[in-house]
């Protein structure tokens, strides 16, 4: 599966947050987007997930252009799972509920879209949910959150909250999983653990996009790298550019 971004732009007032950004990302690989604050990295993720609307440009997943028309937004958005910088877990719900809320919402919408008659809706929803619950359980095992699944976000440590946020983002089985500054809200000691989790997602054959300004993390996880400044891509290539930058800007950033 390939994600193709063509000429993506977004302005906030007169400021160009993203200015003609184009790149490709493949499944089973980690694409790291690096750059200083304000370089447009986080805006990029918000546009992919349609939390912010793009001004122009195209987002194409596996040959299909996304976000064409209002009706497509809900279904297209589910192709992206976003792990927020501060995790944004829903406070009033347990870790397990946090993971199940989007799953239930998705199943309900699927059943409705399929036009299942009202009389059979409840039964079919229950059956579809039971099926989904199985994969959620596997996800919980995989991310090692079985012991904390009944806890509320307030009592979770940073690392635990992040694992729950990852499980929640993966629960709807998106093709692309995006991380916004995955190490910034965590103790530095946890960087290795985060890197391990992210790279382990390659096995799931997802397209993995990680936005970070943490160079040590980028070096641990990247297959490909994009360096952004002032909303534009300055340099891109494989992980090698982190050790051997071609542009002065990236060289300065890495110092």
């Amino acid at each position, binding site marked *: 599966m390939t994600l193709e971004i063509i000429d993506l732009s977004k302005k906030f007032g007169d400021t160009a947050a993203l200015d003609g950004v184009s790149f490709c990302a493949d499944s089973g690989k980690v694409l790291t987007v690096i750059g200083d604050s304000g370089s447009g990295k986080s805006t990029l993720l*918000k546009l992919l*997930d*349609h*939390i912010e609307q793009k001004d122009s440009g195209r987002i194409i997943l596996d040959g299909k252009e996304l976000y064409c028309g209002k009706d497509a937004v*809900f279904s297209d*958005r*589910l192709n*992206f*799972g*976003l792990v*927020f910088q*501060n995790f*944004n*877990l*829903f*406070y*009033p*719900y347990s870790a397990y509920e946090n993971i199940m*809320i*989007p799953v239930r*919402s*998705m199943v309900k*919408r699927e059943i409705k879209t399929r036009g299942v008659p009202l009389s059979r809706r409840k039964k079919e929803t229950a059956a579809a949910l039971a099926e989904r619950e199985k994969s959620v359980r596997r996800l919980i095992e995989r991310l090692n959150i079985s012991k904390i699944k009944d806890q*509320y*976000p*307030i009592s979770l440590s940073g690392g635990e909250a992040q694992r729950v946020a990852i499980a*929640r*983002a993966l629960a*709807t089985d998106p093709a692309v999983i995006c991380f916004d500054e995955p190490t910034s809200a965590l103790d530095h000691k946890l960087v290795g653990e985060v890197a391990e989790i992210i790279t382990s997602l390659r096995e799931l054959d997802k397209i993995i996009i990680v936005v970070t300004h943490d160079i040590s993390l980028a070096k641990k996880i990247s297959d490909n790298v994009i360096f952004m400044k002032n909303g534009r891509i300055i340099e891109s290539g494989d992980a090698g550019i982190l050790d051997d930058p071609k542009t002065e800007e990236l060289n300065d950033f890495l110092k």
Partner: protein
Amino acid sequence: MSFIEANLRLLDGFATTVILFFSSLIIAIPLGALVCRLRLSKIKAIENIMRFFIWAIRGTPLMLQIIVIFYVPGILFNVRIESRMAAAIIAFAINYAVYFGEIYRAGYTSVSRGQRDAATSLGLSGKETFFKILLPPTVKKIIPPMTNETISLVKDTALARVISVGEIIYEAQKIVSTHAIIWVLLYTGVFYLLFNGLVSLISGKIEKRLSYYGE
């Protein structure tokens, strides 16, 4: 006046106060949601009308509003509000809806943007986002200020006497002035203390129930 007679009169006043309080509260709670919704409207004209309305209601005495609602429709439009009690309830409900609406607005807008973004990102519908994600923390945030306002409403019901609604203080004052019996004032004070004690107790229980999660 016998002890029993005085008690019966006060009991009448007590019943009136309770009816005033509960009726106003039951109307003001949902009406406040409407005030909040309109105040947060993206249509500038509606937002400005609500700003003006909130300014007018908050900026004038509740007593004046009760008088206006009871007398003005009859004088201007020949539509008299026959029941004094109803006029008082309408005035309380509108006044408190404005205060409640502003409390809801403060609670709602203080729920972090991240919660909204996460709900949007996870594909939740607008309805699901509001009812499942934004409403519970809003309710939690507004319980303490709502308790304050509710306690104020209990005490403000005494203003209904301005249009001769026989609430408890009205009845008590009549007894004091005509029969020179003072204990009824103490009785009245204790009634307010107990009533507001009950309001605080209920709000404390709700707060405790919601304390299992934090932001």
